[in-house]
Every structure is written in structure tokens, then in C-alpha cells.
């Protein structure tokens, strides 16, 4: 009796396996034209992204400029040790992470909110002009914008301090105080990036079917309800993908703007991994070292994005892969 049952199970298993294989084969056949379309993309990634990856080995070598990649001696993890054993390592990590995190909490929603606000405007010249003006700071070079920002915050002649004094407060040298750096940096990031960042969400908003809005209005929903039930879900895909990618970039805070903004007294909150590597490279550019640190950043960033993607997969329909 039991034997018969086993055989039956075996048969069912075999049949299921067959079905799965057939299904996969069917999908493969259906995709054949897509493969044709995808071919140049594959070529691109192989040639320009994977081929140069051999350069990563330099993180494990002691790069001698003239000997090149091959003949430079292997040193294993020495470069990484040099980085991790710096007394400032934890501070740099912490600052990088915190600055990114502030950017995530405040800088990520800002373009979304701007897009929503712009969305509420009636179409017309004001809307068009506001949109255009909002992304102007993106085009003025960082050097000039930071210069202006620094001027605003000057304790002696800056606009902000003038206002504070008028309101009865005390003038403060904001840029030299570590406590304020993160906030100021985030504000600067929002100032330069909110307009440009909102474009993506504005484009996503156009994908929402106007009939859904009409249906909601008929049901008696006000603007708030419409936003909550239609607009946000409508652009949810985009938001989630942008968020995942942002999380992946958590450790990559660029040095250019920080260098223009920080002072030595603010190192304890402003000094991030990239600025440290930059200062170290100023005296004698150490290619191996910066590659090693870059590799460290990449690995951590990848772990983050893997985790973020896994969470997104579990709880929503959208995910990176």
C-alpha cells in the first residue's frame, strides 16, 4: 500500500518539474526578441563596466605608478588596515552616515513635497515659471552657491545673522560650530537639489489616470483624501525605487561641497570619509588607499541596498530586482 503512494508522489513531483521546465522554456521563447533588443545593453555593461573592474585589485596592492597594475606588489589588506586603524575611523564613518541620514530624512521627501505642491497649482504661467526657477540653483556651479551660502551665514555681514539680531537674538558664527554643520549642509543640499529632484516626481504624476480623481471627487473626497489615496499610491513605485537607490548611496557623501563649507573646527561632525581621503591625497596621492576606501564604501553600500531591496520585496510590489 505505502509503495503505491510513494510512486504516486514521485509521479506528481516529476510532472510538476516538467511543467516548471516547460513554463521556463515558454518564457524563454517568448523573450527571444527582447534578447535582441537587450543585446547592446549587455555589451555596454560588459565592456565599460565589467572590463575595467580589474582595477579593483589595486586595493590589495601597493600601487607603484610606473610599474602599473601588474607589477605592483601585493599587500593584502594593508590598505584597509591603514584606514580602519586611523583614530578617526569611527568618527568618519559616523559623520558620513549621519550626514547621509539627515539627507535621507529631510532631503528625500523635499522634492516629493515640492512636486505635490506644484501639482496643486492651476496650470498657467505661475506654475511654469515656478518650476523653471526651482531648478536654477542646480545649474549655478557649486563653488558660487556655497560661496553665497557662506556669505549669508557670516557673523558680521550675513543676512541670517542680521535677521537674528533684528529679532533680538545674538549673532553666531554658524559655520564654525560643529553642532550646526549637518543641518546647514542638508539645507544647502535641499536648496540646490529640490527643484531638480522634483522633476522625476512630476513626470511620475502624469501617469496617474485622471479618471481616478474624478471618481474620488464623486465619492466626496477632498484634496487631502485624493492625495492620500490616489496621488501617493500613484507615484509609490517611483518613490520606492528612488528610496532604495538613495539608501544604497548612504556612504557616498561627496567631498566637493563639504570642502567648500567646512572649517577645521567643525571636523568632528563635518569630516567624512571622502574629505579625509581627499586631504590625504593632497600631499601625495595614494591610489591604492583611495581605491581601498572606495571598495569599502561600495561593499557597505551594496549591503545596504541589498537589505533595502529585500525589505521592499517583502512589503511592496516594487523592488529593484
Amino acid at each position, binding site marked *: 500500500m505505502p509503495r503505491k503512494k510513494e510512486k504516486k508522489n514521485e509521479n506528481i513531483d516529476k510532472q510538476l518539474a516538467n511543467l516548471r521546465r516547460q513554463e521556463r522554456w515558454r518564457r524563454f521563447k517568448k523573450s527571444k526578441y527582447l534578447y535582441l533588443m537587450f543585446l547592446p545593453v549587455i555589451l555596454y555593461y560588459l565592456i565599460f563596466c565589467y572590463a575595467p573592474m580589474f582595477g579593483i585589485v589595486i586595493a590589495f596592492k601597493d600601487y607603484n605608478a610606473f610599474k602599473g597594475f601588474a607589477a605592483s606588489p601585493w599587500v593584502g589588506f594593508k590598505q584597509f588596515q591603514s584606514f580602519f586603524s586611523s583614530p578617526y575611523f569611527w568618527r568618519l564613518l559616523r559623520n558620513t552616515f549621519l550626514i547621509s541620514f539627515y539627507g535621507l530624512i529631510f532631503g528625500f521627501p523635499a522634492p516629493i513635497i515640492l512636486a505635490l505642491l506644484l501639482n496643486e497649482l492651476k496650470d498657467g504661467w505661475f506654475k511654469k515659471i515656478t518650476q523653471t526657477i526651482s531648478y536654477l540653483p542646480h545649474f549655478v556651479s557649486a563653488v558660487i552657491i556655497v560661496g553665497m551660502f557662506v556669505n549669508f551665514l557670516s557673523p558680521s555681514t550675513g543676512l541670517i545673522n542680521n535677521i537674528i539680531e533684528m529679532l533680538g537674538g545674538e549673532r553666531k558664527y554658524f559655520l564654525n560650530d560643529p553642532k550646526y554643520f549637518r543641518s546647514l549642509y542638508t539645507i544647502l543640499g535641499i536648496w540646490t537639489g529640490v527643484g531638480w529632484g522634483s522633476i522625476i516626481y512630476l*513626470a511620475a504624476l502624469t501617469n496617474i489616470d485622471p479618471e481616478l480623481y474624478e471618481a474620488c471627487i464623486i465619492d466626496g473626497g477632498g484634496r487631502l483624501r485624493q492625495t492620500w489615496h490616489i496621488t501617493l499610491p500613484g507615484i509609490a513605485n517611483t518613490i520606492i525605487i528612488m528610496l532604495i537607490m538613495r539608501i544604497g548611496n548612504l556612504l557616498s557623501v561627496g567631498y566637493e561641497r563639504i570642502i567648500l563649507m567646512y572649517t577645521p573646527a567643525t571636523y568632528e561632525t563635518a569630516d567624512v570619509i571622502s574629505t579625509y581621503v581627499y586631504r590625504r591625497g593632497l600631499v601625495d596621492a595614494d591610489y591604492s588607499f583611495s581605491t581601498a576606501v572606495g571598495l569599502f564604501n561600495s561593499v557597505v553600500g551594496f549591503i545596504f541596498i541589498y537589505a533595502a531591496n529585500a525589505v521592499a520585496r517583502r512589503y511592496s510590489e516594487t523592488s529593484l530586482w
Partner: protein
Amino acid sequence: MIKKSMSRRVFEVFNIIILMCLNIVMLYPFLYVFAASLSSNASVLAGRVSIIPDGFNLEAYKAVFKYKQVWISYRNTIYYTVLGTFINLFLTVCGAYPLSRKYFYGKSVFTFFIAVTMFFSGGLIPTFLVVRKLGLYNTVWALVLPGAISTTNMIIMRTFFQGIPDALEEAAIIDGATDFQVLYKIILPLSLPSIMTIGLFYAVGHWNSWFGAMIYLREMKKYPLQLILRQIVLQNQVNELLSQQAGTTVEETQSLISETIKFAVIMVAVIPILCVYPFIQKYFVKGVMIGSIKG
């Protein structure tokens, strides 16, 4: 009814006020650069320019346009941008469309390997060596091919493609359309806003780019505008940073590029992009596309 209308109106006024403030804050740097480019050098140095030019003159612009190199670079930048964006969009759509189809066999694997490249890269010198090996050095292809697909943009576009309702696609397939026809007749028209957006990102990227030109181009007559601009704007900065090294003092050459020329070159580089955006804006009108296709 009246209550809702009231709160709605309050909100609208509030909205306009907030956006007005935003406008002022965003406009200020730009106005300053514009005013400074129209002022006299002495005024700029003395700090007398805010948003109104002081000592109005067009000398800076004259100086900028007098040099042939600026015109040549302008022409180059336009060429690189058009060619580059075209290639970008073509490849990005070729990548995003298959990845957005649920039945694409191997989709997750492909996406995974592509996402890996967002993080791990060989660095500047290996990429340079690869480009050289391919014989692209000192050609326009070295500027256009290495960054041809921005993975971020491709994923965004894939997301947009995925957002198009399946019903439309299925209807077309029932009518006997092939993959290509689905793409051509349905997906692309519907995604026009997103394609315009991504195209805008790429175009601006090309317009603002200078690094690729710096390392891949040998002859000055091929230089794009931003490279020239960066030279001029940064010369002071470079000196400052270098002279902070312990034990070295970089003696500046008489860096007498006037400040006003700096600003004039910035304006010259920015204004064309500003003129392009209004053309794209009309695609951002809500729901226009979906409605028309449905009909």
C-alpha cells in the same frame, strides 16, 4: 460645502505664498551671477553688487565672445549633447523595456548584475585604459560611450514602463501586435513624459560635463564649454587648496581673469538649457497621454 471651499482656498493661497518664497530663494544666486556679469570688475571686487548691476557694462560678454575658442566650444557642446542624448535614450530604452516585461527570462539576474555596477567600479585609470584599447581616445565616442547608460536612469525608466497598465498591452497583443509594435505604438507614446525627463537628465549631464573631455580629448578645438568654464572659475580655488598643503606656498601667477568674465561665462553656459525646458514642460500636463491613448 462652503467650509471645504474656504479651507481649499486658504490652502491655495498658502501654497502660492510658499512657492513665492521658494522662487525668491532659488532665484537669488542666479540673479547675482547675472548682475555680476553685467557689472564693472571693480564693483564686483569691492562687493557692491547684489542683484542689481553696479557700473553696468557689457565688457565681460564682449571679452568672452571675442575669443573664437568659446564659439568653438559652444558648438562642440551642442554636438556632444545631441549625439550623446540620442545614444543614451536609445540604449536606455533598449535596456528598460525588456527589464520591464514580466515574462523576460533572466530578468532578476540581469537587474542584479546591472545594479552591481552601480557600486563596484574599477576606477578612473582602468576605464581609461579600456577606452584607449578600443581606440576611442581623442574622439567624440570617448565622451559618449563610456557613460552611455546611467543605471539609475534606466531603472527609473523601467519603473515608468512597469507603471503602464497591463490592460492596454494585453489589448494590443490580442490584436496581434509583436513586442516591437507594443513598444512602438503603446509604451513609448504613453511614456513620453518619462522619456522626456530622462532625456533631459542625460542632456543636462552632457551639457555640464567636463571631466570626460579633460581626460579623453587631446586637442583644444574639441573641448566643450564647461571645461573652459571650469578652468576660469576654479583657478582661484585651486590656488587656495594647493597652498594649504603643509610647507608649500604656491605663488599665484597674476591671476587677473576678471571676476566679471567668470560670471559671464557661467551665464553663457546656463542660458541655453533654460531655454530648452519650456519645450519639455508641455509634456508634463497630467494624464494627457493616458487619456488620449484610451480613447
